[in-house]
């Protein structure tokens, strides 16, 4: 299992949720994981129902069996100051830079620089060791930018190469790339069983592969329960309406005769079944498209009551059950 787990996906597919569930799953049984946010959205804080996260690693959850999940919202400006401090001991000059807007300037004018700071911080956490020589975190999970931007985001070397041909930024980019392109890293893509997210996932995978970035798994999120299977749907088409009306009546829902309450339910229920069938066919189609991509596939259930902390632990359990940690 790679130690840096990057989670991307089309907007609206729930990548923050999947990243958080993965961090919980990987922390189970005494492990320690760091969940990293890079887009300043405070999605992790919302998910874990805590106050906004500062730029500081802090414990936000305990996993089953005593594991711990830490979280960090990386701020590119503060990361740059950190970095300057670490390498140049700038002290007050760093603050002066900030006051002048130099930090904003540097992180704005060169998005590659911004990205190398974000990924650099995550890679630093991956490599960090404590005094006894053990890794500070067993795993680092990154809630990364969406599929459309992920390759560019991770491929910092190319981005920065044109800007800094030598110097510390250049070296930093090289070091980051060594981690990102190694087996230490796996990039997972979250999708839904819908056309556009699946298409975007396929495109994202080819881009990642072309950039030689390690593609991990496909996580299909919010999978609806299979209430009726293909055989049932066949039966829906062949069963006479009167039989359904009688059956509904037998279930205690009123009269089966024309105009009876049970009979009046037949049409709307069949309409719902028809919509379900259409969806079912589309989802099967998307499943086969995903299967052709040749990556391990995982499916996570749609939580009927919406996402909350309990649901998150449920998803983490599901990921473990599927052998993801």
């Amino acid at each position, binding site marked *: 299992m790679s130690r840096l787990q990057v989670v991307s996906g*089309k*907007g*609206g*597919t729930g990548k923050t949720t999947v990243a958080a569930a993965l961090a919980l799953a990987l922390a189970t049984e005494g492990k320690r994981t760091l969940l990293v946010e890079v887009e*300043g959205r405070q999605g992790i804080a919302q998910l874990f129902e805590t106050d906004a996260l500062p730029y500081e690693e802090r414990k936000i959850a305990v996993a089953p069996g005593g594991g711990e999940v830490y979280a960090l919202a990386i701020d590119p400006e503060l990361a740059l100051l950190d970095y300057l401090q670490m390498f*140049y001991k*700038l002290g007050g*000059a760093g603050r*002066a*830079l900030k006051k*002048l*807007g130099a930090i*904003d*300037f*540097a992180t*704005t*004018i*060169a*998005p*590659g620089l911004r990205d190398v700071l974000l990924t650099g911080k995550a890679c630093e956490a991956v490599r960090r060791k404590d005094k006894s020589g053990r890794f500070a975190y067993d795993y680092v999970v990154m809630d990364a930018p*969406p599929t*459309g931007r992920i390759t560019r985001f991770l491929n910092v070397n190319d*981005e920065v190469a*044109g*800007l800094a041909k030598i110097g510390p*930024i*250049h070296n930093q980019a090289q070091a980051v790339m060594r981690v990102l392109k190694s087996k230490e890293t796996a990039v997972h893509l979250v999708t839904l069983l*819908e056309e*556009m*997210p699946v*298409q975007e996932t396929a495109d994202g995978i080819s881009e990642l592969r072309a950039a030689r970035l390690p593609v991990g798994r496909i996580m299909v999120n919010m999978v*609806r329960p299979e209430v*009726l299977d293909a055989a*049932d749907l066949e*039966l*829906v088409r062949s*069963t006479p309406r009167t*039989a359904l009306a009688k*059956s*509904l*009546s*037998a*279930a*205690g*829902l*009123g*009269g*089966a*005769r024309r105009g009876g*309450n049970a009979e009046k*339910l037949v049409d*709307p*229920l*069949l*309409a*719902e*079944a028809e*919509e379900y069938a*259409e969806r079912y066919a589309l989802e099967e189609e998307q499943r086969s498209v995903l299967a052709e991509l040749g990556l391990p596939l995982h499916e996570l259930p749609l939580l009927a009551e*919406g996402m909350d902390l309990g649901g998150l632990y449920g998803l983490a359990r599901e990921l473990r059950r599927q052998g993801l940690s």
Partner: protein
Amino acid sequence: MSPEAAKANAQESARHRLSPARVLDIDPLLDDPKTRIMVCCGSGGVGKTTTAAALGLRAAERGRKVVVLTIDPARRLAQSMGIDSLDNIPRRVKGLEDSGGGGELHAMMLDMKRTFDEIVEAHADPERAAAILSNPFYQSLSAGFAGTQEYMAMEKLGQLRAKEEWDLIVVDTPPSRSALDFLDAPKRLGSFLDGKLIRLLLAPAKVGGRAGMKFLNVGMSMMTGALGKLLGGQLLKDVQTFVAAMDSMFGGFRTRADATYKLLQAPGTAFLVVAAPERDALREAAYFVERLAAEDMPLAGLVLNRVHGSGADRLSAERALGAAENLVEPRIVDQHGGKAGLRNSPDTYGSSESLASTARDTADGAPDGSTASEPGSPGPDQEDQSVDRLTAGLLRLHADRMHVLSREQRTRDRFTARHPEVAVTEVAALPGDVHDLVGLRDIGDRLAANRPELPETDGN
């Protein structure tokens, strides 16, 4: 059910159907010649682009000359408008239903690098333009800066509007990490290129010459030193060249950003916040509504996509599940099922029903635990059982649907409680994606129909 309970139930379902929110009427907005710009904004994955395209098509078929500016490179959407790939130039969409109003639909997709290049080419002499275009910082900024896309979208909008070629411009905003980026970006890029630091980089000598600026000068030399160390000398030189070139060319980015802002605040602009009835999407929508108000931007209303309905919404999830249980395990009949069975009017079962069904009805009514004799012929009984299993499945499906309905209702209620002033239009969920103009037209119809899922109001 007691009369009071029945009355409460009726009130509950009336509340369910009649939203307390104001209804957003799309057609008058589209038809009003004073509406010149419509901006669709909202978080990612809520159907912004599709909504923009559907609005554009509807306005065109109602006789207006429309251009849709999309930012999201959704190939399928381009294809649905009969265009293989959209580019930076508006392309005419064919196959519109001619209402005799002479409307036209054009569509384009923002190419932000191309748009940026065009600005450079338009504002600098060829030699200088070439120098800027080949500067590594320009390349990085024009292709990747998180705010460039937003800024260029606004720039393009300004260009389209200035041409006076279209009656209506429908814009889809970029899939920003946060909805607010889109409003912040022009200012940010503007203030950034106009900022103190740039002044310093351009003319450190001038600043240093003033006595009061001594401290700043110290800071400055420390800073250039630090930047030089960090980025390398070549890089700093590139930055300075770039900034100098940009500065001479734009003559005040802030002015442009301000003009864009004013355009958005103008009365001819209508913002539509797009969301799905999900917690996160509506939370973003609420932020957006508040932000638009704070910026004096004219909000027309909220488009709530993917709303589920049911033709049988009088049958609650609980009752459907109870009934499904009765069917699958007919011998374990709970009080509720028994009572429900008794409520049936006797004539329902009287006439031509099959024997098996009647036998089971008896079993249904029987007290808990009593074993009904297995009916004789296995053939029809098995068939009956499979119909019952199927019916139970349909009822569970319905229960799921009712759960979705009530969750969506709760989520939406939270939004309307917070923002009762916002007019809302709901668009019923479609099972699949939109592939063609027919699909877009269908969405347009749903947008304009105020309550698409309004069920018949006969009582239960």
